[in-house]
C-alpha cells in the first residue's frame, strides 16, 4: 500500500498506551526507542538512541545484550554520530534541527522532542504517540513539559496529533480552568487539579515466555545481584540476562502498568 500522507507513530514503552499502536496498519511508519524494542510487536522503521556511548557501554547497565543487538541490528538507528560498532547508526542532524527550529525554544529534554522535530522537517502530516506518557515518578516528570511543548509546535504547524485514550499528555487535568476546575458549591479545587500522586517508576519488563511476573529476591540479595551484575558482565554463552528485571520494592508482585519512553 502506497503511503499518500506521512503518518509517523512514535513509540515508547508505556504499556497501557502502547496497546493501541496501529501495528497492522501499513499507512503508518513506526519510530521507536531502541531500549524499548522488547515491547514492540510490530515492525520499527527507525530506532533512536541519542544517549552518549558511555550509556550503552557502561558495564552492568544493560549487560552485553544491548551492544550485541546494536552490532546486529539492521534497522536505521539515529544516534549522536555513526559508530563503527553500530553498522545501522545514522547521525542525528542535531545542527540542522537546531537551525531549522531557531524560532522555537531549544527545549529538547527527551527523545520525543528530537523525534518530533525530525518528523516535522520531513513533512509529517500525522503524528501519533503510543507508549509515551511521561507520568511516572522519575526523570520523566522533568521531561513531560518538553514533550507537550513539541506536540504543541507540531499541532500549531497543522500536524494532526493522535494520542491514545490512555495517554495523559495534553489533557491532564482535563477540566477547563476557572470554568470547570472548582466545585460550584464549595469553591474548592476539584480532585483533578489537586497535587497528583505520581506512580513510582516501574522498571521495564519486556515480553517473555510466560505472563507470570518473575519472583522478586529479598532485599539483601537484590543488592548482591545489582553489584554483581555491574561488576561481571554476563557472557554471551550464559542464559540471557537482558530480560532480568528487578522491580522497586513497592512494585513487587505487581505487573508493570506504567512507565514511559
Amino acid at each position: 500500500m502506497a503511503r499518500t500522507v506521512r503518518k509517523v507513530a512514535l513509540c515508547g514503552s508505556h504499556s497501557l498506551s502502547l496497546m493501541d499502536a496501529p501495528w497492522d496498519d501499513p499507512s503508518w511508519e513506526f519510530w521507536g526507542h531502541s531500549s524499548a524494542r522488547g515491547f514492540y510487536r510490530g515492525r520499527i522503521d527507525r530506532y533512536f538512541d541519542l544517549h552518549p556511548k558511555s550509556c550503552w557501554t557502561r558495564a552492568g547497565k544493560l549487560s552485553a545484550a544491548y551492544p550485541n543487538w546494536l552490532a546486529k541490528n539492521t534497522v536505521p538507528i539515529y544516534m549522536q554520530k555513526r559508530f563503527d560498532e553500530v553498522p545501522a547508526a545514522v547521525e542525528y542532524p542535531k545542527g540542522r534541527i537546531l537551525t531549522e527550529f531557531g524560532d522555537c525554544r531549544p527545549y529538547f529534554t527527551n527523545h520525543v522532542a528530537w523525534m518530533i522535530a525530525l518528523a516535522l522537517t520531513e513533512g509529517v502530516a500525522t503524528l501519533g504517540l503510543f507508549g509515551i506518557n511521561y507520568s511516572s515518578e522519575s526523570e520523566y516528570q522533568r521531561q513531560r513539559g518538553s514533550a507537550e511543548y513539541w506536540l504543541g509546535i507540531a499541532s500549531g504547524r497543522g500536524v494532526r496529533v493522535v494520542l491514545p485514550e490512555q495517554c495523559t499528555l495534553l489533557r491532564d487535568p482535563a477540566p477547563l480552568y476557572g470554568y470547570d476546575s472548582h466545585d460550584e458549591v464549595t469553591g474548592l479545587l476539584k480532585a483533578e487539579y489537586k497535587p497528583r500522586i505520581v506512580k513510582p517508576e516501574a522498571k521495564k519488563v519486556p515480553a517473555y515466555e510466560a505472563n507470570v511476573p518473575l519472583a522478586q529476591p529479598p532485599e539483601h540479595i537484590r543488592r548482591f545481584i545489582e553489584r554483581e551484575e555491574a561488576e561481571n558482565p554476563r557472557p554471551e554463552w550464559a542464559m540471557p540476562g537482558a530480560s532480568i528485571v528487578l522491580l522497586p520494592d513497592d512494585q513487587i508482585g505487581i505487573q508493570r502498568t506504567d512507565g514511559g519512553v
Partner: protein
Amino acid sequence: MAVNVLNTTTLSEALSKDAIEFAVASTTNISVGQYLVISGTAGLEAMKVQAIPVSGRVGVIRGQGGTRALAAANGTRLYIGSPADYQGVKDGVLAGVNGNPGNFGDYLLPGLRYRDGAGNEYVLVELTATVVPGTGVLFSKDGNFTAAPLTSAGFGSVGVVIEDGTSDQYVWAQVYGACRAKFVGGSSLATSTGVVQGASSVSTPAVGLLAQTTSQASSNDALIILGMYLSSAVTTATTSATSETGFAANVWLHYPFLRRNTATS
C-alpha cells in the same frame, strides 16, 4: 518427573528453509511417519519423515505442527519420535512442574523455558549423570541443554535440578527464584553471607555445589558461581534415599553461571 530421552541424530549438512531431503548422521532409529524435531537454541521445527531414500538421507515435510521451516547448521541435533513419543515426553515433563503450566506446544524438549505461578523459572535439560533434587548442574554450551553435576573445572550456565533423574532423562532445572540446593560437606559451612562454588570433590550421588564463607572461597574467584546466593545457613541434608552425605541451604537463583576457571584454562 524425569522422562526418558528420545533418540536423536544430527544433520550431516547445513539445512536450508526449503530443503525437503537432506543427510543425517544416522537413519538407524528413523522410520517413515516419525517426526524429526529441531529444538533448543537452534529454534523449533517439526518435520514429518516421508521417505528414507538411502541410508543416511531422509525426505520430509517441513514445518509441521504449527512450526515453521528453519535454516539449521550442519551438526544440529534432531530429535526422533512418533507423535505418541512426543506426547509421552510432554505428559512426563508437565507432571514435574507446579503452578500454572500455561500453554505448551507439542514438542517439549531440552531448552524449553517455564515459569511457575510463583515467578520461578526453569529450563528442561537432558541429564548425562545421576542427580537428586537440589543438585547443581552445568548446562552444555552447544545449544542442546545437556546437564551434569557441577565440578570446579567447567564453565557455563548453571541450574539446580528439582527432581531425581539419571543419565538420558529429561528433568527440570531451576534457573531463577528461590530453591533448596544441596552441597558437598565442609568443615565450616557458610551462612547467608557466603558464596557458592562448583564442588571440587564428588559425592555419591554428586550434588555439584560447595558452599563457603567468603574467606574460605578460593582466591580464584572464577570458581564462584555468579547469580547464586545463599539465603539461609547450611544444614545437614540427605542427598539420597539412604545416606546423609551432604548439606543443604536455601538459595536464590538469578540465572547463575560459572565463569571459565582461569586456573584450569
